[in-house]
């Protein structure tokens, strides 16, 4: 401790900028980790709170996926002696159209029985109390709505205020007949909740005579488990009977892929933090060798020296982690909004987190992680410091030079790691082996970095010298003389760039795959959707609308599509019912992953098989001929897989079956989307106008032209791959931090050299020039290595996308566009990084520089 105070503190104070830059890496890593987990955790917690509040005293919820089930199921459940209370519910978000209010979650309930499960905690307002106290009065007026105090206050609503909501029959006026206090149920969905009668909700959302779920409380003296068993036995395997909390797990499973990608980012940021710590400590050890020598000469043991540097590492980690946690909390507020919009756009599920709650566990984990990363970064330099020979340390020497022996050892280790990295990629499907190989590949690149950076610096020297004989040569020489000083920065930037290239390559391949899918599959001229976007499924069209559409002039063919999420093998997948015969005829150019296109559609149209998406096959390890067991309200549907197709409509995977099978097993004739093909010579815009005119004021519908759907999907894809831009920002930040750090040290090391240059006539611009050129050389070397490593990283990323993330098989497409864009971006960042250090070099005292030893 005393050494920390006497030796470390004065050093840190003298090199305050570097000490700060050192901790920035840890701050960044911890902030991203905390930000992501807090944002996701808060969105999830908000969802769970909503589920909890809406569930009230319900102990079990009966569902059959998004399609819901017939009303008669309620009677069967209510008849069971093990069931105390069973009340139906419909739950769906609607757009309010109110500025800044987003969605309003509508809870459709049967007011006559529901209050035994849910406490509405209504505010009384004179005579109005009667209305809400007597459910029959509420029911007698089908436009009744109960809103929360928070929503009412935000929008200036009172009892009897009118509110317009989008219904299946177009916008309708509703009347506020009750206001809930902002506690319990009233606080669900951030207060954006309204209760209406369930039969009114059926009409609003076009549910027909169906419910989304039944909330159940067990009869007195009956355990929840017994109650559940009795319901399952009565309803059969097509229904899920789970406690309300299990809905949180389903939501979490939707967040999984997104969270995994974000976690990769946070781990990466921390990895960069380790590098920055390593870089700074390695430099500090080199610069403080005489000091270490004196300490050793005075009797300090190796252990004390090691402890001194590790102690500094721990302190840097502690301060960095604390700052990181604080920055993470700020970041979480921004990320929560992003997460919500991704969930809404990609999955059609929304939950906005208004409060960010930092759990003590998460903060402790973040602190521990930051400290551990810092100690890992400081470990090797601390060990090297402990090994310093006091006699040598007090002499002048070249400690930075890499010895031939060291280089050889690195190359041998790198060759072994490369072999280890390639083996799992080529010969095994084992997941641990694959990820081990990935780590080995990264380590191999790290080991080779100093050697490769040295070779490249030698290669660039003539070029730099040719550009500026003095400034260029000195810049290159600075890199050649101190490879350790540069290589950690080069390695960090290289890894960062490799990740950008990997993500950009994935995005490029993903775009190409999605483009092909759009070209071959999404080819109708018009789409008629019940929701403004194609992923929200709150509203459904009745089947009767098909004939009404068909009667319109210019319509050649209509395909009805009904998509809904269902539980499958413990996860959530998309069930898509289609008119298979028509689909086969209209999409003949699709390239199947497995099976014959015509045969699979024929079997599916006959109701003898299903087709699955490639992503489902990959994620669930399904093959041709496997029998799928899908729980439906009518029982357990068992059908073989007749074909596997590429389909990107849902990341969790999709099961396609014929509409006739869906009708039979789910008894649901509604549709979400109509795919419409035009007769030759008909303009899509004209038919769109006719459809809007025909259904004006009667139906809520959105008509989208083919190019609008394509643009919408590509926009979503853009949003999803937006993470590669975040990664790009991280790469630039790493480059800036690393290069600033390296140059700061380089200028300190070259103080005398720069002083000589100024003494013999070097102008300020020329001194700046040599610093800028050094920065640009670091940028160029990092670019060369990063773009190269990115090519290898992309191989692994594509394999990861196939195995674990999205089940997508993507072609290898190197992102040349991104690589080209990176050149000016990184060189620009390098130049910006050099500005402040160059000014330091220009403004330093010349006499001190020349006397500097």
């Amino acid at each position, binding site marked *: 401790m005393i050494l920390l105070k006497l030796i470390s503190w004065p050093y840190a104070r003298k090199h305050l900028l570097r000490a700060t830059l050192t901790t920035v890496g840890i701050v960044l890593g911890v902030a991203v980790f905390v930000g992501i987990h807090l944002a996701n955790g808060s969105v999830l917690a908000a969802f769970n709170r909503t589920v909890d509040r809406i569930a009230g005293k319900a102990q079990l919820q009966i569902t059959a996926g998004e399609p819901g089930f017939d009303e008669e199921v309620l009677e069967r459940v209510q008849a069971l002696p093990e069931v105390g209370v069973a009340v139906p519910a419909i739950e769906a978000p609607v757009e309010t159209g109110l500025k800044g209010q987003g969605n309003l979650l509508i809870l459709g309930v049967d007011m006559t029985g529901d209050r035994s499960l849910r406490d509405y905690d209504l505010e009384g307002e004179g005579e109005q109390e009667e209305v809400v106290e007597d459910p029959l009065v509420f029911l007698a007026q089908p436009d009744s709505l109960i809103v929360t105090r928070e929503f009412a206050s935000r929008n200036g609503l009172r009892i009897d205020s009118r509110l317009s909501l989008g219904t299946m029959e177009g916008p309708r006026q509703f009347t506020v007949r009750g206001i809930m206090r902002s506690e319990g149920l009233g606080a669900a969905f951030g207060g954006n909740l309204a209760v209406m009668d369930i039969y009114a909700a059926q009409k609003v959302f076009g549910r027909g005579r169906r419910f989304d779920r039944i909330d159940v409380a067990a009869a007195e003296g009956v355990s929840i488990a017994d109650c559940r068993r009795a319901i399952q036995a009565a309803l059969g395997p097509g229904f899920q009977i789970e406690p309300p909390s299990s809905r949180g797990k389903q939501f979490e499973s939707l967040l999984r892929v997104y969270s995994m990608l974000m976690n990769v980012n946070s781990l990466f940021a921390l990895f960069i933090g380790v590098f920055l710590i390593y870089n700074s400590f390695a430099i500090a050890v080199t610069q403080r060798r005489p000091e270490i020598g004196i300490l050793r000469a005075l009797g300090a043991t190796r252990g004390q020296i090691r402890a001194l540097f590790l102690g500094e590492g721990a302190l840097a980690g502690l301060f960095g982690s604390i700052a990181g946690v604080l920055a993470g909390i700020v970041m979480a507020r921004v990320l929560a909004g992003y997460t919500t919009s991704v969930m809404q756009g990609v999955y059609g599920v929304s939950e906005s987190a208004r409060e960010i709650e930092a759990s003590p566990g998460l903060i402790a984990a973040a602190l521990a992680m930051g400290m551990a990363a810092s100690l890992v970064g400081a470990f090797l330099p601390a060990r090297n410091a402990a090994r310093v020979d006091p006699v040598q340390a007090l002499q002048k020497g070249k400690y930075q030079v890499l010895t031939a022996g060291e280089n050889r050892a690195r190359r041998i280790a790198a060759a072994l790691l490369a072999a280890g990295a390639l083996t799992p990629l080529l010969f095994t499907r084992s997941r641990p082996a694959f990820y081990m190989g990935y780590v080995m590949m990264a380590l191999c690149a790290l080991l080779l970095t100093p050697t490769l950076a040295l070779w490249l610096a030698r290669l660039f020297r003539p070029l730099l010298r040719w550009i500026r*004989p*003095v400034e260029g*040569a*000195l810049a290159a020489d600075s890199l050649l003389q101190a490879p350790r000083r540069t290589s950690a920065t080069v390695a960090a930037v290289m890894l960062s760039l490799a990740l950008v290239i990997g993500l950009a390559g994935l995005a490029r391949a993903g775009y190409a795959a999605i483009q092909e899918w759009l070209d071959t599959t999404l080819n109708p001229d018009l789409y008629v959707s019940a929701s403004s976007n194609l992923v929200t499924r709150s509203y459904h069209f009745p089947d009767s609308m098909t004939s009404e559409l068909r009667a319109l002039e210019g319509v050649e063919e209509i395909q009805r599509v009904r998509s809904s999420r269902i539980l499958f093998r413990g996860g959530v997948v998309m069930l898509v019912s289609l008119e298979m015969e028509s689909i086969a005829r209209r999409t003949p150019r699709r390239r199947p992953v497995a099976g014959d296109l015509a045969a699979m559609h024929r079997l599916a149209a006959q109701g003898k098989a299903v087709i699955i998406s490639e992503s489902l096959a990959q994620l669930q390890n399904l093959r041709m001929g496997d029998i799928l067991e899908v729980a439906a309200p009518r029982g357990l549907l068992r059908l073989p897989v007749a074909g596997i197709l590429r389909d990107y409509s849902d990341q969790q995977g999709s099961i396609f079956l014929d509409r006739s099978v869906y009708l039979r097993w789910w008894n649901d004739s509604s549709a979400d989307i109509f795919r419409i093909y035009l007769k030759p010579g008909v303009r899509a815009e004209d038919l769109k106008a006719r459809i809007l005119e025909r259904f004006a004021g009667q139906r809520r519908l959105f008509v989208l032209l083919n190019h609008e759907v394509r643009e919408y999907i590509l926009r979503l894809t853009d949003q999803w791959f937006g993470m590669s831009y975040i990664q790009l920002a991280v790469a630039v930040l790493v480059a800036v931090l690393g290069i600033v750090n390296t140059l700061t040290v380089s200028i300190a090391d070259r103080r005398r050299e720069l002083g000589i*240059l100024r*003494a*013999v*006539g070097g102008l300020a611009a020329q001194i700046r020039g040599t610093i800028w050129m050094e920065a640009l050389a670091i940028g160029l070397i990092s670019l060369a290595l990063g773009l190269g490593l990115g090519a290898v990283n992309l191989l692994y990323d594509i394999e990861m996308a196939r195995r674990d993330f999205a089940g997508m098989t993507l072609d290898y497409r190197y992102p040349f566009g991104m690589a080209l864009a990176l050149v000016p971006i990184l060189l620009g960042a390098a130049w910006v990084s050099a500005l402040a250090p160059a000014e330091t070099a220009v403004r330093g005292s010349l006499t001190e520089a020349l006397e500097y030893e």
Partner: protein
Amino acid sequence: MIRLFSVSRHFNGKRRVTALEDVDLEVARGEMVSIVGPSGSGKSTLLNLIGGLDRPSSGTIHIDGRDLTRLGDDDLTRLRRDKIGFIFQFFNLLPSLNCLENVALPLHLRGWDRRKIALRAAELLEMVNLTDRAGHLPEELSGGERQRVAIARALAFNPPVLLADEPTGNLDSHTGASILALMHDLHDRLDATLLIVTHDPAVAQSCPRTVALRDARLVRDERR
């Protein structure tokens, strides 16, 4: 050639340190002057101020008619490059450049044509008898050879003023004597004004004029 009027230099730290106090000095073109005095008397500070490496706290310094204290950083650098040649005790050669490149350094900084630079650098190395060492790095040379490279570099533009700070201080007596002889020879041939800061009485004695400093003040100005 060189004129100092009431020049002082103070360093303001926790306590004020006076490195040079109220110094007046005039050196004519072609003079050879040794500056002597005990450690800390202000010799190097005086040389640094004359060379434009440092700026006085008060007073004025004129070199070849130009007031250094009124020049901006870049103008001062240009004056240093064109009018002053430095020879340091520790040679101050750039370790990564070979002898020829070190000598060519000021020429490159001035932006000369590469062919002209090659010719001039070779000529300068020949002047100090180091043609055969042109491609060697400083670490491959002896102390005397390094100092000769430094002298060649200082003569790049035939500057009218040469400033030498303990030029023999880091050399054995035999090598020191040969470097001193070389400096005398160059002074005679080039007619430059030469100021030498030294502790060595032999070096001081070899100069026609000696200026002595003590406790930051000029205490003696002796001509032989």
